[in-house]
């Protein structure tokens, strides 16, 4: 397999312009002859569908939810970054680019990230024009706030529901194309397989989640915008239905999976409180602007927080990282919380939590000002825990949040399967080994509104497109495989539920492939996967039939894929023996317990290629070349 990143030549700042100029365009009259399938209707999928429809392509958009307005982008709270420099605090495209590369611990492509920073400004313009009600100053201009990993205020926000407002913007733009007849919606449809014909992605097989019907759809290109795989850990901040199935099926049809071990653990989540727990809830990172993180200095101090006097509190982030303080990047904050809890300084019933305290900010700015800023987050916290963060400090703990890894894509966002494009969290492209806060929304919308619509035309104009219908044998084969698999899941009739297996897998991954990893643990987890998989296919219980709405069956299919996927994730974590960003290999740390990169050996993207059932996937490396910035050990001190 050849990993050709197809980055345009020339100076970094001119690459994107050069690409757009040099790419072949498609005559507007011809665009309507092309069919494009978009899977997923979050920020990336909805914005891509809308824009492709506007350009004249015929788009079919699929999502598993009952409405395309519900993709999990909706849950993003804090904001979206852009290099507008409206605050005149020294921001620039170059700085956003630099912060993102540095935040990602130098494991992302310069060209992609620079393009992202360039496009960031257009995104804000686009969203405002759509009527997204961003927060504003009294003069009527847009407000910004600061976020982890940056020393400028460049984050645009709409209270604590920026993701929702941006998604509703993209969704409404897409609904406009639905009305115009350019986009056809297929809600409650799950992609079960990718159809590759003559080496090109030419369609998908879906399951209608209401009728159970297995349907096939042919197209000239397939776009996956199906989000990340964080739910492999069972407990994560992802939505319940978020899954790896679409990207995993694509992987099995030839698309390489890049950096699967890069999983971001978000530092500010509500701690776990029971075995029945179904998901973890994130409290926006923006809380760290005004909240101070601390634990008691004394081991095993179980006094209520109010009774612990100031000298006996360890504000460990502020002490350790004086220049960034509580605003260090997510991976650093998460790891430090784990470290404190490992030292038995954790708080709460389980000892797996640290305090996030607003008392100082309330004294300084007043309760009203703090409530105005974080009111809905405080309400959310109180709803879940029954405690008021104004009266006592929040307890928080890291949780799996975002996956930087994903299907490998080139500069055009095309995977190793020609005609298969991957957007948003589903691809690996822009965040390296760690994503900065408020960058996921930026990337999803950059990919969907601006990048894909420009790059897809070069695919259409450069490749020979043979007319294909769903009667092609490749579709029949994919349908048969899908049906066979569903039948198999239904016929096991064992004694354990899909969730039960999912929980077991999640715990295995969290323990050995979570915030800190080492060779022994990873090998142990890898060794236990075959048994787990075997048990799953022997002892699973799925009730009902495949011929109607069956949520247990849906879950079983997703868990089966997570189990298979876990192998690649662990293999990737094993093979990358350096620490970088979120990937902390205990073997590779500095004297101060910070992540230690090994740029000579690991400055590359790891892309895994499927080799067939039961075979170890093959690792391909795409070297990362840094021409414009100096690699440095990240320091937030």
């Amino acid at each position, binding site marked *: 397999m050849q990993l050709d990143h197809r980055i345009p030549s020339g100076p970094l700042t001119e690459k994107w312009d050069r690409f757009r100029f040099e790419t072949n365009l498609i005559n507007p009259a011809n665009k309507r002859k092309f069919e494009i399938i978009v899977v997923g209707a979050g920020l990336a999928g909805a*914005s891509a569908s809308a824009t492709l429809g*506007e350009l004249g392509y015929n788009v079919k958009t699929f999502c598993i*939810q*009952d*409405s395309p307005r*519900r993709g*999990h982008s*909706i*849950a993003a709270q804090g904001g979206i970054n852009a290099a*507008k420099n*409206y605050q005149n605090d020294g921001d620039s495209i170059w700085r956003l680019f630099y912060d993102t590369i540095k935040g990602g611990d130098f494991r992302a492509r310069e060209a992609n990230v620079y393009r992202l920073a360039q496009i960031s400004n*257009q995104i*804000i313009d*686009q969203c*405002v*024009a*759509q*009527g997204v*009600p*961003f927060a*504003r*100053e*009294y*003069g*009527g*201009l*847009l407000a910004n706030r600061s976020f982890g990993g940056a020393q400028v205020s460049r984050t645009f926000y709409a209270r604590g529901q920026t*993701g*929702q*407002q941006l998604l509703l913007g993209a969704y*409404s*733009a897409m*609904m*406009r194309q639905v009305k115009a007849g350019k986009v056809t919606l297929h*809600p409650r449809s799950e992609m079960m397989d990718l159809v590759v014909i003559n080496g090109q992605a030419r369609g998908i097989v879906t399951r209608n989640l209401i009728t159970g019907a297995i349907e096939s759809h042919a197209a000239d290109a397939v776009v996956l915008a199906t989000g990340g795989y964080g739910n492999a850990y069972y407990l994560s901040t992802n*939505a*319940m*239905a978020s899954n790896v199935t679409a990207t995993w099926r694509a992987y099995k049809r030839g698309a390489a999976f890049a950096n699967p071990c890069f999983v971001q653990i978000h530092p500010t989540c509500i701690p776990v*409180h*029971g075995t*029945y*727990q*179904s*998901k973890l*809830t*994130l409290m926006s990172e923006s809380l760290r602007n005004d909240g101070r993180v601390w634990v008691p200095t004394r081991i095993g101090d179980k006094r209520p927080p109010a009774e612990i006097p100031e000298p006996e509190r360890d504000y460990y982030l502020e002490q350790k990282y004086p220049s960034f303080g509580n605003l260090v990047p997510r991976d650093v904050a998460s790891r430090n919380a784990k470290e404190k809890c490992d030292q038995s300084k954790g708080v709460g019933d389980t000892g797996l939590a640290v305090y996030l305290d607003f008392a100082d900010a309330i004294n300084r700015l007043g309760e009203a000002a703090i409530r105005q800023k974080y009111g809905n987050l405080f*309400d*959310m916290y109180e*709803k*879940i825990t029954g405690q008021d963060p104004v009266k006592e400090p929040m307890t928080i703990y890291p949780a799996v949040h975002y996956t930087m890894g994903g299907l490998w894509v080139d500069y055009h966002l095309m995977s190793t399967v020609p005609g298969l494009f991957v957007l948003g969290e589903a691809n690996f492209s822009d965040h390296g080994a760690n994503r900065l806060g408020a960058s996921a929304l930026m990337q999803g919308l950059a990919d969907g509104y*601006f990048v894909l*619509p420009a790059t897809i035309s070069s695919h259409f104009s450069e490749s020979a497109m043979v007319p294909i219908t769903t009667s092609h044998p490749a579709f029949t084969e994919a349908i048969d495989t899908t049906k066979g698999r569903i039948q198999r899941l239904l016929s096991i009739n064992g*004694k354990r*539920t899909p*969730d*039960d297996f999912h929980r077991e897998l999640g715990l295995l991954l969290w323990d050995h492939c979570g915030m800190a990893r080492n060779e022994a643990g990873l090998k142990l987890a890898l060794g236990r996967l075959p048994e787990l998989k075997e048990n799953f296919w022997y002892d699973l219980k799925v*009730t*009902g039939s495949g011929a109607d*709405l069956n949520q*247990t069956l849906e879950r079983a299919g997703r868990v089966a894929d997570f189990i298979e996927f876990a192998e690649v994730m662990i293999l990737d974590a094993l093979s990358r023996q350096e620490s970088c960003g979120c990937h902390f290999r205990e073997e590779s740390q500095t004297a101060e317990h910070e992540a230690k990169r090994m740029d000579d050996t690991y400055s590359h993207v790891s892309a895994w290629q499927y080799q067939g059932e039961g075979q170890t996937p093959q690792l391909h490396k795409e070297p990362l070349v840094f021409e414009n910035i100096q690699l440095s050990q990240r320091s937030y001190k």
Partner: protein
Amino acid sequence: MTIIHLTLKIWRQTGPESKGSFKTYESGPITTAMSFLEMLDVLNERLILNGEEPVAFDHDCREGICGMCGSVINGTPHGPEKKTTLCQLHMRHFKDGDTLVIEPFRSRAFKLVKDLIVDRSAFDAIIAEGGYVSVNTGGTPDANAIPIPTFMAEQALDAAECIGCGACVAACPNASAMLFVGAKISHLALLPQGQPERSKRALAMVKKMDELGFGNCGNEKYCEKSCPKGISISNIARLNREFMRAAFCSEE
């Protein structure tokens, strides 16, 4: 941690055309830190192991923002807590021995799919009629080109917070969708970007709403009380104004 036991009367219906009925289940031990949906998860795990079909219910984000969950608990959509979605309703609000009657959202415009799941695509159909600003990607002016007073942006956001869950329709004695439509119309009518299509939007969205078989607003305020995002009925008044302006004063 407190443990409670509940009796659950849940509406079971295999499909849109079949006849449904209530079925009674004992919840088993439930810890009060659980969310309502986690309580249903526990029930479902038990049903699966007993070889019974679990209760089908819609849910996704479980943090109160996606708008996918929602059932009627003892006559109230999303249950007894104000401004709370079902997924964010925690069991500490119930007492040991309580009986909970769990029904799907009921409305002619929301067809029942299975058990507690209904089809809310009518909302998407209404949005498709004009719940947007018709701008193509690219070529938009600088985001700061038009200043917007804070209170206006805030009011627009108050309306735009709607998560499209359908609780307003479920709560309304007339199954009216006026709060949903009012929220979207208000969001865009309050912003300068929404002005060019203001009249067209109001007429088209109301027309679609009527066609889809929602009932008429009786100003009874049940919608506002059930709305998990606290969307105010002042948005319905604004819709009434917008429609009047569009119907009698515009050239649309």
